[in-house]
């Protein structure tokens, strides 16, 4: 008796639409009126329209100059640098994060302590300070050498040749990223049920197989959203590499802005729109990666936007047909 009206209607909807379903429609419950919801919606809509109108009509934004700058080679070169720095740091940071997380979860107290200290230190030092430190690193250590500790060196590198601006930027961002990724990865690994570890070792699966094929793929389900969050932060942090004299997207706009002071606002808009695009691309990738790793975790996969649109249209058509029948 307590069946919701929606269910009853959709049951009635199951036979072809031309069949009238009088006894059920006669009992249809009138939905509750919600005036405050309508008022709040109207207010928000008015504010949103006002904002967009301001954005489009205020001469302050100089949309013509925006159009001029948006695809300028200087800006695109900067964008390329941003992408390059972000991609290298994301990969190196994730690898570093996985290693740090494994060290933190290991049974060796030394490894645990080193990992903890690294994360503690790198999360405490502002990224800009790390970058500037590295930038001045070649003054501190003139050569880097590989050899026996405190003993003879086998190879040595001239620091000033090794540490290009690009290398400094990538190393700085990766060091910082690894500290945050370590905690994301550790959280993901801890989220995997203890029974999975037990089942894997009861089957005698080799240790590396247990991690690569059993634990990590399941951990990725909770790692993905957190790491993407991290990644978006990283993409925006690349704007700091301007301070180690690398001309990224923000850096190029900044330089152009000091040459053409009148164009600062459109240049900032150009930067904003490009960052928005980058973040959107990452979010779309995130959706599909999450969907991939949801296999088996849920009974059915969440629909893709296209699938959702299709079912939405089918539902709408059915509803219109139903209303017409009433």
């Amino acid at each position, binding site marked *: 008796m307590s069946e919701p009206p929606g269910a009853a209607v959709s049951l009635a909807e199951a036979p072809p639409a031309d069949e009238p379903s009088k006894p059920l429609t006669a009992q249809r419950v009138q939905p509750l009126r919600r005036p405050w919801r309508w008022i709040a919606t109207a207010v928000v809509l008015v504010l949103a329209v006002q904002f967009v109108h301001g954005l489009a009509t205020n001469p302050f934004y100089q949309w013509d100059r925006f159009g001029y700058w948006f695809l300028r080679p200087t800006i695109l070169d900067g964008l390329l640098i941003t992408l390059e720095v972000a991609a290298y740091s994301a990969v190196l940071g994730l690898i570093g994060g996985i290693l740090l997380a494994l060290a933190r979860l290991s049974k060796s107290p030394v490894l645990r302590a080193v990992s903890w200290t690294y994360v503690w230190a790198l999360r405490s030092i502002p990224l800009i300070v790390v970058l500037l430190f590295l930038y001045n690193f070649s003054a501190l250590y003139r050569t880097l050498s590989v050899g026996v500790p405190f003993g003879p060196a086998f190879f040595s590198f001239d620091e000033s040749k090794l540490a290009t601006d690009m290398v400094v930027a990538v190393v700085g961002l990766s060091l910082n990223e690894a500290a945050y990724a370590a905690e994301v990865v550790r959280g993901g690994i801890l989220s995997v049920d203890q029974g999975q570890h037990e089942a894997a070792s009861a089957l005698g699966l080799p240790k590396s197989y247990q991690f690569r094929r059993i634990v990590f793929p399941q951990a990725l389900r909770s790692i993905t959203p957190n790491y993407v969050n991290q990644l978006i932060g990283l993409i925006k942090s690349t704007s700091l590499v301007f301070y180690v004299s690398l001309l990224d997207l923000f850096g190029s706009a900044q330089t152009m802005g000091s040459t053409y002071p009148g164009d600062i606002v459109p240049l900032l808009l150009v930067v904003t729109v490009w960052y928005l695009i980058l973040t959107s691309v990452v979010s779309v990738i995130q959706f599909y990666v999450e969907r991939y790793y949801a296999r*088996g975790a849920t009974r059915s996969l969440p629909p893709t936007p296209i699938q959702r649109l299709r079912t939405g249209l089918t539902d709408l058509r059915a509803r219109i047909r139903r209303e017409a029948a009433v």
Partner: protein
Amino acid sequence: MSAKTLEPSTDITPAAVEVHDVHKWYGANRVLDGVDLTVRPGEVTVILGPSGSGKSTLLRVINHLEKPEIGYVSVNGELIGVKRRGERSEVGVPPAEGRGRLKELSERAILAQRSRIGFVFQNFNLFPHLTVLDNVAAAPVATGRLAKPEALELARELLDRVGLGEKTGAYPRQLSGGQQQRVAIARALALRPGVILFDEPTSALDPELVGEVLAVIKDLATSGTTLVIVTHEIGFAREVADRVVFIDAGKIVEQGPPHEVLDKPQHERTRDFLSKVL
């Protein structure tokens, strides 16, 4: 590693499972307090006991998911998790007669030993991100015993045997509890273990699903596989067990054929327990 390949001069074939004076404690809590147990090849042993009596721990000690503090376990004549210092091979040496200090085995060696002992968990612990077929085929491939196509072939065969030949492409969470547990049994069988340990295999199941899992275990019991089963299903124990072991407070209180232990229990604690569960 099979005992049958040894010379007949040893008059006793090694026990399928031998637990020798095993003690296990967590802090001040004594979980196992000097347990001795011998399971002969092909025998079906059912372990009964109240909650917290140490029966699951005993099972987990057998495949070294838990390390005993004192004592040792051997399966088919091979010491589990440890070796005797200085001895090259343990095969065929009755462990109780060996001398010398015990030394922990490498993790890799322990994993190799575990792959010869089947284990079925109360909560199935199937790998949720792998299909049913891959769950069963994973271990033979990962341990290097079979190539992928043969492993998949074997997995299909075993899934057929537990009545799930139709479900190979499903993910574990799309199955009922009873079906998941049958997949878990197929997964254990894929390594062709000499002994299979069951840790309350039906305790997490809805009552109407218990039968299908017990039927599969019964089928294994009649096929001559050595089974050690921790369960609360007294009726099942009576039907399939060659021997029933009653354990309480970390000690084996009594053991024997089901008609003796279940129908004419000698000890007060066994009587007490049976009166509560029957």
